[in-house]
């Protein structure tokens, strides 16, 4: 199968898969699409009460709910995409076993649905944040680049977990168990400098977690109205290329046997 020719030929399939995904997601849910907006808002409320009011941390950020909300929105996109993608190939096992088509379509359609809802939520968050914080300025031009890199990064990751889960059925539960501590180690309700004085710990929190630079860069642009550091931007671009490249390579290597293993 050649990549580009297939992509064009199977564009309609991708469209149909996205439609399927949307239908299955919203079926029987009263709020439907609104869940995607409500979910981060509820989490934001909870974390604001927890960290902004109840615990009174030793650091503070102006308009803390917005500080939280930007990071949470990015995280929820990452989280939901991976959890949805992990089981996607098994969920669509009937298709995989009986028809020949580019298998990437399945996890990609899961991520595509999440991208759409992410962009809707982020648009709302961005408008409010920029208005309240007065951050309308030149750094905003970087936002589309950062978002494109984030989507590529998440897609690469999603390809990996989906194909691995098809082969090893404990990948999804392991992923689920990892995402919670990962969330708390990500700079969502703090900045690394807020919680540690030690330079090595700060560096670890900033660079060892590939999600950290994405959150930091997007928050720099939206919430702080500042340019992210060059190192952060390069990291983000590098992580995107690496994740997508490695994800596609691994997926294509393992995809041939999918009809047998799912």
């Amino acid at each position, binding site marked *: 199968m050649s990549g580009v020719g297939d992509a064009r030929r199977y564009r309609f399939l991708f469209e149909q898969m996205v439609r399927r995904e949307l239908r299955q997601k919203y079926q029987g849910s009263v709020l439907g699409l609104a869940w995607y907006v409500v979910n981060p808002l509820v989490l934001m409320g909870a974390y604001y009460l927890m960290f902004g009011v109840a615990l009174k941390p030793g650091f503070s950020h102006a308009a803390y709910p917005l500080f939280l909300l930007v990071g949470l929105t990015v995280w929820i996109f990452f989280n939901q995409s991976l959890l949805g993608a992990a089981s996607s190939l098994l969920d669509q096992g009937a298709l995989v076993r009986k028809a020949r088509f580019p298998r990437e379509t399945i996890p990609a359609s899961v991520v595509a649905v999440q991208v759409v809802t992410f962009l809707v939520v982020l648009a709302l968050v961005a408008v409010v944040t920029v208005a309240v914080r007065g951050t309308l300025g030149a750094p905003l031009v970087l936002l589309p680049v950062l978002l494109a890199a984030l989507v590529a990064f998440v897609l690469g990751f999603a390809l990996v977990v989906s194909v691995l889960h098809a082969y*090893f*059925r404990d990948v999804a539960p392991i992923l689920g168990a990892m995402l919670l501590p990962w969330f708390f180690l990500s700079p969502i309700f703090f900045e690394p400098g807020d919680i540690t004085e030690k330079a090595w710990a700060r560096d670890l929190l900033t660079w060892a977690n590939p999600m950290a630079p994405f959150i930091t860069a997007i928050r720099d642009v939206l919430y702080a109205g500042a340019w992210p550091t060059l190192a952060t931007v390069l990291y983000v671009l590098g992580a995107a290329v690496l994740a997508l490249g490695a994800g596609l390579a691994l997926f294509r290597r393992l995809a041939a*046997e999918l009809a047998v293993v799912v």
Partner: protein
Amino acid sequence: MSPEPGELVLDHAWRAFSVRADPGRTLKGLLLGRRGAGPPPVQALRDVSLRIAPGETVGVIGRNGAGKTSTLRVLAGIVPLQRGTVAAGGRVVALLELGAGFGRDFSGRENILLNGALHGLSRAEIEGRIDDIVAFSELGDFVDVPVRTYSSGMFVRLGFSIAAHLDADVLLIDEVLAVGDEAFQRKCEARIAQRVAAGATLVLVSHDAALVERTCARTVVLDGGAVVFDGPTAEGMPFYHRQMGTETHP
């Protein structure tokens, strides 16, 4: 050398499947180096070589577990070979089992779109055929109802109607027609004959000897994953009956 549309080539094809009661491998098992116990792999294709020319009609018969369905899945490009090569020219449409890819909560019409898309058709190409497909399936108003309400006969009507209208160069059909009632079966056979007359290749897996005799000029008998007979149906059927011990005239 790429095959011409409608041509199928299997060259010294080998494929085995592991048969384990518990197919779910885990990372934990991998890390602990745990090897699941179980019977040895089943050799589904054993050095199979077939060359099918465009427009041929081939019936694949053999006892249960002879490798018939595996052969179709390999020809459809769904399952890869472990050794040997497979090549199929043009658009290959496979009808394997009932309801391939039918989303249960989706209407028949939505499933037509999805199935067309799975075979690489564009929206315009499918929408141009949708009326013919609906008419052929005789589903009437049911086409707009979720397919979970369908009977198995309705499933096969929809599945066959779609497969028969995708302008396939190769049609691979696995023992599904038997579910339809007799009138619909006749209609399917007529449609297949029409497609074959238009130059399509047919490979049919069936236990229905009469169906193979009616629709296929050539017969391949498989046994234990290997080809044990390949020739005209008139000779293949007696061979098959001898093999099964079901000769009518001893």
